[in-house]
């Protein structure tokens, strides 16, 4: 254990003494009230760190866990990769801001979330001289909302959001979001929604024929009110906790990502995936390097490794995710190339919408409704 860990940093020692004194003089609350403010610490960029240069910490989604890839990467580069999981962009940012971010060198936020991270001054700009293989990407991923020309990140996977349901229990099939509301009695505690404010509010907005990126107060309120009707009937808000429950029959329908669905559908022929009408979200998750990254070299190695067409293809095959790497697609097996969950038809793509970053006020509103919905 590093003893220095427990000592206050010089800059804050004075404040520390002040506080210690005020605490010792019996609850210095009034003193604190009148005294000047102090800063609640934050992850400082470029902070010294204890991580070893042979280790790479990733902060990623549960569905992107690929032990084989980590092993291969270690064989090629000698770097040991440790992954940590999050289940929503917002929670990832909360953890970073709570001071858990110093060890991570690569994060996997969603596209719409990158501008927020940039604004919070958490991301390092990519050095394009050190990134090889950007040209392999599909053109639409070279220029996306908030991250023009991959200044900050490189896409890892993309897909759609939809409903995964058990065909045996729901033989009539599901076509639109409103099915959940119309059959809420039948589906009581047999459905889950994602643990994600934008996606869940987005599905309600879509079902009302509004945009996913709606900022209109009245429309948002309507979407929120629609969700409160559904809330008593859902089993939980969960991003990952529904997979085995859907297979065992505890759940009949779960809101999930297409990347989850591809693999599950292959394992379990009872399941179906649908992008509900009138529309859903088209998302993409990106790899970015935080400013406080302890091991940016390893991060570049990781990103370059994943940009290689053959590696991207093997990852896409193993994890059943949809790769944004155009050069990798011809390397995939035929059945995956023609998988409509992975590569939706033009007609389905037409009803999907990408999420964009929100204005501050709109974000507060989303936050407020989401907090009310989940508490």
């Amino acid at each position, binding site marked *: 254990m590093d003893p220095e860990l427990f000592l206050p940093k010089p800059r804050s020692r004075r404040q520390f003494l002040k506080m210690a004194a005020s605490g010792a003089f019996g609850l210095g609350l009034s003193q604190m009230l009148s005294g000047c403010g102090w800063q609640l610490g934050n992850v400082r960029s470029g902070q010294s760190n204890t991580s070893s240069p042979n280790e790479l910490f990733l902060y990623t989604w549960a569905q992107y866990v690929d032990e084989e890839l980590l092993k291969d990467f270690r064989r090629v580069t000698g770097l040991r990769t440790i992954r940590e999981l999050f289940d929503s962009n917002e929670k990832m940012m909360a953890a970073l801001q709570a001071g*858990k971010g110093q060890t991570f060198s690569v994060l996997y936020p969603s596209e719409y979330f990158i501008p927020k991270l940039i604004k919070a001054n958490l991301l390092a700009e990519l050095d394009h001289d050190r990134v090889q293989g950007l040209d392999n990407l599909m053109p639409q991923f070279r220029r996306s909302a908030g991250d023009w020309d991959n200044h900050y990140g490189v896409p890892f996977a993309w897909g759609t959001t939809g409903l995964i349901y058990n065909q045996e229990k729901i033989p009539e099939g599901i076509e639109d979001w409103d099915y959940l509301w119309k059959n809420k009695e039948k589906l009581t505690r047999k459905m889950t929604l994602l643990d994600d404010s934008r996606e869940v509010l987005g599905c309600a907005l879509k079902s009302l024929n509004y945009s996913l990126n709606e900022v209109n107060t009245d429309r948002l309120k309507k979407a929120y009110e629609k969700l409160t009707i559904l809330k008593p009937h859902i089993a939980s808000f*969960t991003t990952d906790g529904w997979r085995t429950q859907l297979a065992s029959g505890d759940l009949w329908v779960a809101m999930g990502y297409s990347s989850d669905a591809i693999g599950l559908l292959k394992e379990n022929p009872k399941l179906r995936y649908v992008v509900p009408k009138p529309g859903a979200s088209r998302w993409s998750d990106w790899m970015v390097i935080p400013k406080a990254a302890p091991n940016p070299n390893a991060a570049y190695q990781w990103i370059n490794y994943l940009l290689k067409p053959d590696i991207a293809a093997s990852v896409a095959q193993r994890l059943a995710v949809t790769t944004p790497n155009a050069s990798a697609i011809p390397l995939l097996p035929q059945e995956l190339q023609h998988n409509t969950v992975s590569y939706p038809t033009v007609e389905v793509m037409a009803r999907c919408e990408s999420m964009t970053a929100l204005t501050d006020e709109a974000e507060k509103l989303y936050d407020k409704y989401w907090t009310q919905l989940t508490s």
Partner: protein
Amino acid sequence: MVISKANLSLRLKGIPQPVWQAWWTVLMFGFMYLPIAVLAFYSFNESAISAKWTGFSFKWYSRFFHDERILQALSDSLQVALGSVTIAAFFGTLMAVGLARYRFWGRDIYQNVVYLPLIIPDISIAVATLVFLAAMTVPLSLGTIVASHVVFCLAYVSLAVSTRINSLDSHLEEAAQDLGATPFESFRLVLLPQLYPAIISGCLLAFVCSMDDFLIASFTAGGGINTLPMEIYSRIRTNLTPDLNALSVVLIVTSSLGVLLAEFIRRQSQAKRSRV
């Protein structure tokens, strides 16, 4: 009347007949052990999903022993528990002895503060520690978990030690000092040997609590650090649970052995004491 009286006293005095409380106790024992039995039973089940028996299998055990993440989490947890218990054993014993020896202003407050972690909800302690670490801009790591676990480990150690001190004969130490021992010598040679059983039992309790703590660890752990409870929690949340059954059986067996061993040591030392 006389007969009923005799009956009653017989029931209280004599060999207990199976009264309804006895059956109730059996039932409650069943309730306490049901979840554990379920975990053990399904750890041998072929299917990971079904609650029906689909066939006998050892595969979850072999998978568990090859699961690097669980083993890494186990090692993180052991480091935290051993580190914090060692620190707490050292400082906690000194503190308990000090509190018993000296009278000073604020002693009562000090004593109450020591037991505070047993009373304040874990979540409040966890949140407070996080806020404090953020205010001091201390980077989170394994060390911060240890530091925060020491707080409640101190409570368990000093609780056990001070209970023991109260039951000791203080004249023994005085006699040793009269015979020329320095206070430190009398502490090391006279008091400490008598305190060992209490220190060990306090440490054991602290160790178990540290190994089982989810909340404080998840608030104070740095990125990439995973204690066993954190890993279990994340697996329950993400439904990646099949080898959890095997893990629980392994943990239950080891911790039961630990408890039985501790109880055995306690009885041995008690027997020794009563012989003296």
